[in-house]
């Protein structure tokens, strides 16, 4: 059976014996949600990538003690969150400089650019005001497009909790954007 079609349990068994292909298949399978979770704790994508790498290495070292009959996914996300928390604490202690993730395009209409910049600023302000859990639920569901159940597993909470946080986050952001729209109408 090829690693691509093997179950998590089979891949875990092979990876704990040092099978590179099996470990690679596990990495490929969970990389996207892993990076999304790590990014919630990291100031930049580069930092998030480093966190994911560290988390996968820790998981590999911990496979010997892992019961392959249990689901691999929640276990991996627990490791990622722990690595993320430690990194966030380190960053808070020593300070870190965030690198902007994107640069604005040069060929857009200046008025449109200005409006987008304002919109983004308001969304950012709104997000800044959100409690971290609401922000994560909103971002992972509405920005990154993960299912509620996936996000619940990624963050280690119940689906209902994700739904509640997401709903509150949306309400807060809607109010912030409504204010922006009203200001534009008044101008």
């Amino acid at each position: 059976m090829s690693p691509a079609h093997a179950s998590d349990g089979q891949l875990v068994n092979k990876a704990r014996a040092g099978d590179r292909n099996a470990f690679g298949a596990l990495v490929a399978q969970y990389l996207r949600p892993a990076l999304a979770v790590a990014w919630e704790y990291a100031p930049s994508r580069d930092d998030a990538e480093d966190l994911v790498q560290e988390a996968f290495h820790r998981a590999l070292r911990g496979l010997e003690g892992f019961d392959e009959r249990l689901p691999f996914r929640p276990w991996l996300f627990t490791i990622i969150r722990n690595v993320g928390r430690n990194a966030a604490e380190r960053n808070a202690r020593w300070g870190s400089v965030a690198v902007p993730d994107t640069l604005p395009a040069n060929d857009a209409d200046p008025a449109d650019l200005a409006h987008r910049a304002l919109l983004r600023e308001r969304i950012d302000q709104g997000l800044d005001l959100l409690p971290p859990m609401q922000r994560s639920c909103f971002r992972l569901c509405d920005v990154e497009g993960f299912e509620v159940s996936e996000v619940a597993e990624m963050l280690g909470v119940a689906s209902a909790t994700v739904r509640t946080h997401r709903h509150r986050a949306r309400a807060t952001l809607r109010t912030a954007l409504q204010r922006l729209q009203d200001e534009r109408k008044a101008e």
Partner: protein
Amino acid sequence: MNEPHDRGALRPRLPDDPTYWEALAYRITDSAEPVLAELRSRNAWWNPLARLAPAFGVGALAATLAAFVALPAAVEPAVQTQEGAFADLFDPGDEVGAVFVGGAAPELASLLVAQTGREP
């Protein structure tokens, strides 16, 4: 749950480029190679045997001791027996036989056929 990172900003979506994910997966897998190699060596086929090495050693020592104890005190050299049997083939008065059985080199004359006085 400990709260995620406090820096708030609407981040861009995760990259959609498959090559990005492939490269990142390769990087993570490749950098894990030392750990994988360690796991491979730990799970090698000879490791269960290696774990039994002390038991094998004790068993081998016991077998060696048992062999020493079971062996007879002295064994007659096989050559001597053979030589004795060989000597028995000859009559004690047989001069030719004495040449083969005796330890000393035979006289040259004794190896020659005795003259009978008759011409061939």
